[in-house]
């Protein structure tokens, strides 16, 4: 494999691009667009995090202190929507933009101009969502799942949310089509599908899921809109419709959505763990098949979100067993990561710490998921803090921890500079401590019956809520440390070598200089 970066510049298209703000507004470069995705998602992470701080401040003590119930509902609703659609999903697309072309040896994304639009739709949607706080009646307040009849009531804020979801959906669909096409059509010669890095595989499957379910979400919110304003009866029993039908259609989108937010993190972890164990990924092909199985199964489990909404027993049994079945391919993955580490020459740099933290905590979230899948238990814990604890274990210590692992892992390649390892480790351990402080106690609160989405609670829940709030404030503050680490890395970090991680084997480390040039792989590398 000869190095190919030497001849990169000058052919085909010019290197001159607008400078200043117009560079970012008009860019068709996958690295620029990836960078914008990542900064946007971090900004949204701070907005959503601020809402979370508001929620935890109100719940610090029983009684109503800071947020009136109406505003509290808006906070929980927008916290969920912004974190899911504004922070986690765009962050993964940012990783895909940066990494997929480099990891498969492509010059750029397949549709570079559309790639720009996929990104620039996001600030529009964010403007509509965040702006809805300031319109008469305030933002949507029916929860991030916006079930009718709550969402067929409500004012202008709900409509702004509906159009924001439409635009986010368009962005996701265009981004996914771009990623699928890039992966299927632009791999370097010799890189067969079964030689692709795991991160690329997980994104291929994630993008497929996005194209499958985002249009269904668009259809759902459209029905909501016409029910609200044009007199249709989709979710209105008087007209022969059914509010429960909304839940079915929403969760047909919503459950695959859960895997959309976790599969790419499986991919990141599957890159990081082999690198720092200095061993190839254990059971590569079983990883691919497990990812595909999870994606397929995820389309047949949606009603486990609705066990208390009224469903025939046969339905409950089907969705219970189908859900528990997902634990099998997930277990394959956890086994493979562990087996990759087994007898490896392991070192524990920050990306590796976050990846191991990911495995440990994601497994806890996965197990509480299996517990929630059991119908009689779910009927007990439905809409309690047990569910909150469960999905924050998979979304925060799952998706978010993997995003941190990926950011620390690839930032040397992106910026040409190393981050501060000591501070990175502090970031990990503080996140680990405060995360568990925040969310572990919520299992107890939920089992004791504390309902979610309520600004006040009985005195018996006071101690655990105070602990949880203290943890949340600590966790939120810790993320400012991450911002500091990243900015100081970009500005004044030590120069990074081409391959700072000696166990790394993918193309961006073996074939490209550090920092990666603006245009990489104009001539594809040959993969053996």
């Amino acid at each position: 494999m000869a190095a190919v970066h030497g001849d990169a510049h000058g052919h085909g298209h010019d290197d001159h691009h607008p400078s200043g703000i117009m560079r970012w507004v008009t860019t068709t470069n996958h690295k620029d667009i990836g960078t914008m995705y990542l900064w946007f998602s971090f900004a949204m992470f701070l907005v959503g995090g601020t809402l979370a701080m508001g929620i935890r401040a109100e719940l610090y003590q029983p009684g109503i202190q800071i947020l009136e119930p109406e505003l509290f509902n808006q906070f929980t609703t927008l916290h969920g929507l912004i974190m899911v659609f504004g922070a986690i999903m765009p962050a993964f697309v940012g990783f895909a933009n940066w990494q997929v072309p480099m990891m498969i040896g492509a010059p750029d994304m397949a549709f570079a101009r559309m790639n720009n639009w996929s990104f620039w739709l996001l600030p529009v949607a964010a403007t509509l969502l965040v702006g809805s706080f300031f319109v008469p009646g305030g933002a949507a307040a029916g929860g991030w799942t916006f079930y009718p009849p709550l969402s067929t009531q409500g004012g202008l804020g709900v409509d702004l949310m509906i159009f924001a979801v439409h635009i986010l959906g368009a962005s996701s669909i265009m981004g996914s089509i771009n990623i699928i096409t890039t992966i299927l059509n632009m791999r370097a010669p010799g890189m067969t599908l079964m030689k692709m890095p795991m991160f690329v595989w997980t994104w291929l499957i994630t993008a497929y899921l996005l194209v499958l379910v985002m249009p269904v979400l668009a259809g759902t919110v459209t029905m909501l809109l016409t029910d609200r304003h044009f007199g249709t009866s989709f979710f209105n029993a008087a007209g022969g419709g059914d509010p429960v039908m909304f839940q079915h259609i929403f969760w047909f989108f919503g459950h695959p959505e859960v895997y959309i937010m976790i599969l790419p993190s499986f991919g990141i972890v599957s890159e990081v763990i082999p690198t720092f164990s200095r061993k190839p990924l254990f059971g590569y092909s079983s990883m691919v098949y497990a990812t595909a199985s999870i994606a397929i199964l995820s389309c047949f489990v949606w009603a486990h979100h609705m066990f208390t909404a009224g469903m025939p027993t046969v339905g409950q049994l089907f969705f219970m067993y189908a859900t528990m079945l997902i634990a099998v391919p997930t277990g394959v993955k956890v086994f493979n990561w562990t087996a990759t580490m087994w007898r490896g020459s392991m070192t524990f740099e920050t990306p590796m710490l976050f990846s191991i933290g990911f495995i440990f905590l994601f497994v806890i979230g996965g197990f509480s998921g299996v517990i929630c899948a059991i119908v009689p238990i779910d009927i007990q814990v439905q809409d309690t803090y047990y569910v909150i604890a469960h999905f924050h274990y998979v979304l925060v210590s799952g998706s978010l921890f993997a995003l941190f692992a990926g950011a620390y892992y690839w930032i040397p390649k992106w910026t040409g500079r190393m981050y501060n390892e000591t501070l990175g480790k502090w970031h990990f351990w503080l996140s680990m401590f405060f995360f568990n402080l925040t969310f572990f106690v919520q299992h107890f609160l939920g089992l004791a019956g504390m309902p979610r989405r309520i600004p006040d609670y009985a005195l018996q829940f006071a101690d655990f809520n105070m602990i949880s709030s203290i943890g949340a404030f600590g966790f939120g503050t810790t993320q400012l440390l991450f911002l500091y680490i990243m900015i100081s890395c970009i500005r004044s970090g030590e120069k990074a070598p081409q391959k700072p991680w000696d166990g790394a084997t993918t193309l961006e480390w073996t074939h490209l200089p550090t920092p990666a040039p603006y245009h990489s792989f104009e001539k594809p590398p040959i993969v053996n």
Partner: protein
Amino acid sequence: MSQESGHYYVPAPSTYPIIGSTALLFMGSGAALTMNKIELGYGLLGIGFAILIYMMFGWFGTVARESESGKYNAQVDVSFRWGMSWFIFSEVMFFCAFFGALFYMRNLSIPWLAEESTVLGANFWSSYAGAWPTAGPGVHEEFTPMGAWGLPAFNTMLLLTSGVTCTLAHWALKENRRDGLKKWLLATVFLGALFIACQAYEYVHAYNDLNLKLTSGAYGSTFFMLTGFHGFHVTIGTIMLLVIYFRSAAGHFTPEHHFGFEGVAWYWHFVDVVWLGLFIFVYLM
């Protein structure tokens, strides 16, 4: 995978995406305000729509020029094929949501509402029979459902014929018979436009003569939303065909290199297939 000579074309920086985003910002906020009866909304909606039209002219025009100047190699062509296929798949899923709603209401929620054993069926609407077509137990305006064998059957014939003329145009293009290409394309556009006109007439008929409205409960909701979104897609498809006709008249496309044509043809066949689903499940059954 690239075995091509020449580089994969990566377009230069472009302002069209941000123009499109601006359009959607105006349209999104404008539509939300309009629906809440705030005057400002109409203006915003209009401005947004105008910007969107400008963006589409500019962006698609650029793509057509790039294509005609030979910038797209065979690998780019494959990308377009993948891209269009996945886009059509996403459209299929969009229609699936509405077909799903139709099946759910007909087979589950309406029978449940009519059942004596359910709370609603026993206490509120005990006289409700629940037979399709229905506006639901609480909507008390009578309506006549749309029959299948009049205009809808004629529409089915129109669209199926248009699929044939579209294919004839494609064959003509591949054999480099430019007159045949233009003639059959124009015929396809005409059939598409006629379909839209018939559909518009059907809606007027429904509102004026059958008292069938968007507000006619489950039947009205599913009837108008499914046929409405389909009609919207036919309109888009007809405009796309018209653009392809003008491009053909301007000498665009060669027998080997004409994905612009094929993409539109694929879309047209997709619209056709959706109609068959509609004809069976909305009109016939």
